């Protein structure tokens, strides 16, 4: 019982970490950043390369790769998405294409000597090895770090969006783009910042969570699915909803694993999404923009 609670909480925070980057970008710019999952994996591989091929310090590699992630997010927005704002079909298609370029590109072999990142050999070391016993349940230190980072991040983001000028302007654009623009907030700049920030968050989630397993390209798809699922259930565009949904999904999956076995996890996820779409389509905390949400 305790293990379900503890692992459920850990799972939930993991999902929240994965999803918050996507939710941020979508909330601010209404552009679905399908490249979210691919940046997650990319950061994992970059850290690995920096540590193993270049022999850099682990912490330094993490910082560098986070910066790279933000930069990539920025570039994707600046060079691709910015020209397509306002054309929803094209935005979605190009975002999807960019994500595949990165994800599948990491699997390439033999192009100009680039050895693709294939195989189960890519492992990031956990920050701290070892376990600790909590209420009779063994928990890795790394998992606790996930929880700690998650909580710090939640507080940090809350402070950012409520007390800094930049964060407030992002929130303003997320609530009502036209009103914010009338107040002089630059929509494109905000979208760019949100993309950079969202990508960095994806990267942060990656460096914290990937040490718990392998780094493979498949992970990119999984992360994207989880992020999308959590965002849909919580309500696209609602940041609080994302967190709430992460907890719902996290616990639901752990409970179902406990009761029915691990194979039913995907089914539970699918079922939850379908249930939410049928019962409360705009998500748990879906926004008040009813004119747009329901058709």
């Amino acid at each position, binding site marked *: 019982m305790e293990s379900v609670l503890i692992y459920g909480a850990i799972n939930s925070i993991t999902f929240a970490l994965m999803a918050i980057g996507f939710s941020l970008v979508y909330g601010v710019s209404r552009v679905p950043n399908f490249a979210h999952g691919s940046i997650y994996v990319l950061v994992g591989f970059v850290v690995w390369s920096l540590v193993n091929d270049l022999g850099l310090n682990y912490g330094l590699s993490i910082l560098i790769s986070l910066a790279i992630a933000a930069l990539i997010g920025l570039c994707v927005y600046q060079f691709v998405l910015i020209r397509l704002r306002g054309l929803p079909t094209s935005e979605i298609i*190009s975002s999807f294409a960019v994500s595949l370029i990165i994800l599948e590109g990491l699997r390439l072999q033999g192009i100009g000597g680039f050895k693709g990142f294939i195989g189960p050999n890519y492992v990031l070391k956990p920050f701290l090895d070892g376990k600790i016993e909590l209420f009779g349940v063994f928990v890795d230190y790394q998992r606790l770090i996930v929880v700690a980072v998650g909580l710090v991040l939640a507080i940090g983001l809350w402070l950012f969006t409520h007390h800094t000028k930049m964060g407030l302007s992002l929130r303003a654009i997320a609530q009502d783009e036209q009103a914010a623009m009338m107040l002089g907030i630059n929509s494109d700049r905000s979208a760019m910042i949100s993309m950079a920030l969202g990508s960095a968050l994806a990267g942060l989630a990656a460096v914290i969570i990937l040490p718990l397993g392998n780094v493979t390209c498949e992970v990119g798809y999984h992360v994207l699915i989880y992020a999308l699922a959590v965002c849909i259930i919580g309500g696209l565009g609602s940041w609080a909803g994302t967190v709430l949904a992460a907890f719902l999904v996290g616990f639901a999956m752990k409970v179902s694993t406990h009761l029915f076995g691990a194979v039913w996890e995907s089914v539970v996820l699918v079922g939850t999404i379908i249930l939410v*779409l049928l019962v409360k389509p705009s998500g748990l905390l879906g926004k008040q923009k009813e004119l747009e949400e329901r058709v």
Partner: protein
Amino acid sequence: MSSQELRRKRLDRSINVRSTGLYALSSYREMTYLLAPRLLLIAGLLVLPLFLDLYWQRVLCAAAVFAMLALSFDFLAEYVGLVCLGGALFIGFGGYAAGLLNAHLGLPPAVTIPIATVIGACLSTLVIMPCLRLRGIYFAIVTFMVPLFARNVIVALGLFGSTEGITGLDTLPNTWVEQYVILSVVLVTLFGIRRLVSEDVGLIMMGIKDNDQAVLAAGVSIFRYRVLAVFIAALIGCFAGAYLAHLYGWLGLSLFAMDFSILPIAATVMGGMGTLVGPVIGALILTPLSEALRGFGQLRVVLYCLILVLFILYKPEGLMNVLERKYHQFERLEKV
């Protein structure tokens, strides 16, 4: 010194102007002008198999399958406003349905393909239905997720042959049947959808894409028409999937591969969104290209996506629109 600026000016060809409406019937020359492109396409496609060797004939079949998917994508994206990021789901559902009917019930391909088309379409529509009441973005996300979920569920629950799939399905009688069946279906679908969008039903769907609030205020249920549109697109895609299962004689998880989702999109963007012919031509160009690159691993996917992004940024109208314009109009540079 005054600087001379040149401006590109486009004028309709005289024959284009003459062949509008009823006047087109006034001379064979004008009728030819109008009919030639279509006849060229039909004749070209039907004659092509005669010039190809066995390997490329197979490639043509695959290209036709992708053409079907591209048609369904273009229809949904440009005529209904729904971006389908998961063509693989249609292929998968149709392919698995046909394969299972064949493997477990022993029905011949001529029977399984039609049945699987309908069953697969019904299933696909049911799965997608919950998100059709919502904005288009949900459709994109859900169609992206479904093929991946389907794969996970099949592997997790060990259904339908799980990772190995099912082999030994009946294949089609001979290569000529293989090709002409799919080519004729592609042509029928192409002209069928063209017809559909100019009917009232198609008009309403386009209205939904343009101005959904006005359609709601006019008393028309957006949900119903979207379901209908998805069903039609699903029929097309599932037919392609069922055909594919019997073309290769096996079914497996690769029916849900990302290829089937991304190549039709790239083909559509390259060929010209909304033209319906463009996606078909795009598929016919991209599929042989992907065949040629088969030895390079995932390069082909990266390449499709690069082509897609480049086209969308720099030539969003697509090839077909350029060709059409060149056919109907001529250009001149003139001094301003």
